[in-house]
């Protein structure tokens, strides 16, 4: 049946070429599109984790839901000591965050002001790399404030200018001070750059009475793939009033938005694949319709129904395999190439800044597993496309089919 199928493919050139081209195009498009979609989502997540959010963060229970100084972590050093002994933890630091009012001569803006440990922060987040003007903080920066570029614009200040701060200290008493702008950063995340500023904890703790207290502890893990396992180890050493959360929970909204985006992406692709499926099936059906007499004669000379099915199966198998054999390496190479050299579309980050896009680069994701299931799906669709033509042929009796004109 295999050689018979091969002969048919060569004989019905038009149908064979159409099936080959459609399978080739759909495989290539499917592989590249899925790679681009997965790559964009991974990039958004990695950027979000890289900027400021940790792979794992430890909070006092209710801090995230209710908030306030009542839910600060106390005795931070003892917790950090426990974390340092956990395998899989690459780096960690504590942060003290408060919301206060920053005010220049003529403008005021509410801001999240964070006390950080500058040296440790360098290995945990990319805020030091986001420096655009001035300098990043050091442990001895004093009242130097490191501000987001959008906040700087809003307050209409520049390097070396003074900004007044008023807020509530960690014991809820009133806190006020004058800070000096020493550095300006731009992460590309509009909201973050508009609402965030940093000071060295050494100085900020004195003002906020927050020595050995923290809003949360942020942790970087050796391998992001093992984040859940590390998180379980951390949770085991924490007191009951603390909770340890991974980035999947911390960035739940973003994860959910990406899932929705993926669903819509797959729906669009599914519609495309359905069209391809029907076109292949229709071509197969037209081809089979013109061969009813041939199938009738074959069945009259003793070829069974299962052999007829095998014939159609081999035909589609050969054509699909040929098309996929060409499309898969090309698609795979495109995915691999653009995973290393992302496509750059100037201005896309500015256009989609509200959705967490912070770079003009669109990286692809190269995964052998994804490539495999994409190809498998195309195979399955092509095999399904022979079912209706097969049942159509079977609706004729052998004698009736052999006399069909």
């Amino acid at each position: 049946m295999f050689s018979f199928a091969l002969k048919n493919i060569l004989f019905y050139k038009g149908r064979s070429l159409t099936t080959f081209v459609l399978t080739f195009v759909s495989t290539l498009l499917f592989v590249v599109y899925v790679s681009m979609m997965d790559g964009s989502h991974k990039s958004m997540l990695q950027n979000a984790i890289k900027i400021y959010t940790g792979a794992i963060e430890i909070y006092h229970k209710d801090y995230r839901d209710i908030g306030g100084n009542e839910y600060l972590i106390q005795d931070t050093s003892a917790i950090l000591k426990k974390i340092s002994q956990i395998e899989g933890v690459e780096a960690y630091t504590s942060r003290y965050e408060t919301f206060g009012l920053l005010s220049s001569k003529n403008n005021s803006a509410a801001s999240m002001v964070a006390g950080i440990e500058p040296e440790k922060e360098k290995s945990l987040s990319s805020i030091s790399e986001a420096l655009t003007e001035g300098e990043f903080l050091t442990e001895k920066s004093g009242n130097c404030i490191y501000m987001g570029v959008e906040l700087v614009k809003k307050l209409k200040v520049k390097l070396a200018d003074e900004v007044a701060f008023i807020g509530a200290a960690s014991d809820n008493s009133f806190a006020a001070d004058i800070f000096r702008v020493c550095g300006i950063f731009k992460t590309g995340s509009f909201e973050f750059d508009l609402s965030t500023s940093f000071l060295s904890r050494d100085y900020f703790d004195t003002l906020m009475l927050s020595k050995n207290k923290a809003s949360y502890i942020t942790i970087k893990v050796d391998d992001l793939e093992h984040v859940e396992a590390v998180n379980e180890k951390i949770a085991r050493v924490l007191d009951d009033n603390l909770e340890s959360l991974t980035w999947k929970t911390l960035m739940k909204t973003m994860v959910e938005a990406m899932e929705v985006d993926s669903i819509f992406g797959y729906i669009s692709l599914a519609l495309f694949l359905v069209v391809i499926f029907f076109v292949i099936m229709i071509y197969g059906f037209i081809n089979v319709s013109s061969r009813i007499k041939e199938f009738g004669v074959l069945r009259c000379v003793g070829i069974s129904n299962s052999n007829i099915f095998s014939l159609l199966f081999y035909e589609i198998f050969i054509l699909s395999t040929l098309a996929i054999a060409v499309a898969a390496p090309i698609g795979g190479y495109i995915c691999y190439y653009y995973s290393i050299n992302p496509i750059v579309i100037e201005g896309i980050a500015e256009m989609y800044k509200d959705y967490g896009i912070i770079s003009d680069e669109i990286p692809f994701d190269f995964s052998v597993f994804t490539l495999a299931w994409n190809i498998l799906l195309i195979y399955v669709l092509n095999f399904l496309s022979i079912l209706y033509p097969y049942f159509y042929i079977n609706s004729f009796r052998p004698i009736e089919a052999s006399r069909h004109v």
Partner: protein
Amino acid sequence: MKYFLALFVTFTLLAADEAHEIIKKLDENMRGESIYMSLSMKILSMKHLREMRLESYSQGTKKSFVKILYPPKDRGITFLSLENQMWQYVPKIERVIKIPPSMMLQNWMGSNITNDDMVRQSSIVEDYEPKIIQKSGTVVTIELTPKEDAAVVWGKIITNIDTATYTSNKDIFYDDEGKEVRVFLYEKVKKFGKYYIPTYWKIQPSDKEDSYTEILIDEVQYDSGISQEYFKKSALKRFSR
């Protein structure tokens, strides 16, 4: 049918008028034409009690000045509210800071009251629509919902007003989603001239049972002709000393 309809409309209008009248009298008691108050404040949070003393000067709903007298660390901090704008002067940093409208709901000086409460920018008469929901003896329970164009922070306020003195004994504040946020309890009503005012207030946040703020009004002077100098921006520094 027409008779019943007319009766219903008349009754509804009378009830609405009554609610407006009660709220108006309550507001008059709380503000007078002008009012000076000397207050003590106790703030309990995180099992730690802090005490403050302050003076408040206000005229109508548009002008208000507050000065902190105690503790020494915060002495001289002043607040001024004019029309819909608010400023704060902090002697420690010698700066006048404008408080943006977005921060009016923030806690004032670590207490359980907001910036808006302190300067009383929003008015229950002008910004809310009252509706009587219950009467029990002299106590009337009124629901206040924001008027459509009112720039207010609360989704709803339920207030229990004693019509014998036109003072509230309990206010419950709800957010936009109808969730209870805090409760004001008022006691020790005293008469000052023609006005009645509760001299003990307790503010209890609904989500933090172990935290509250108590306000004791030590001295009140109604309609005493407060100098207009208190309601100028220059007052922030001038009266800080």
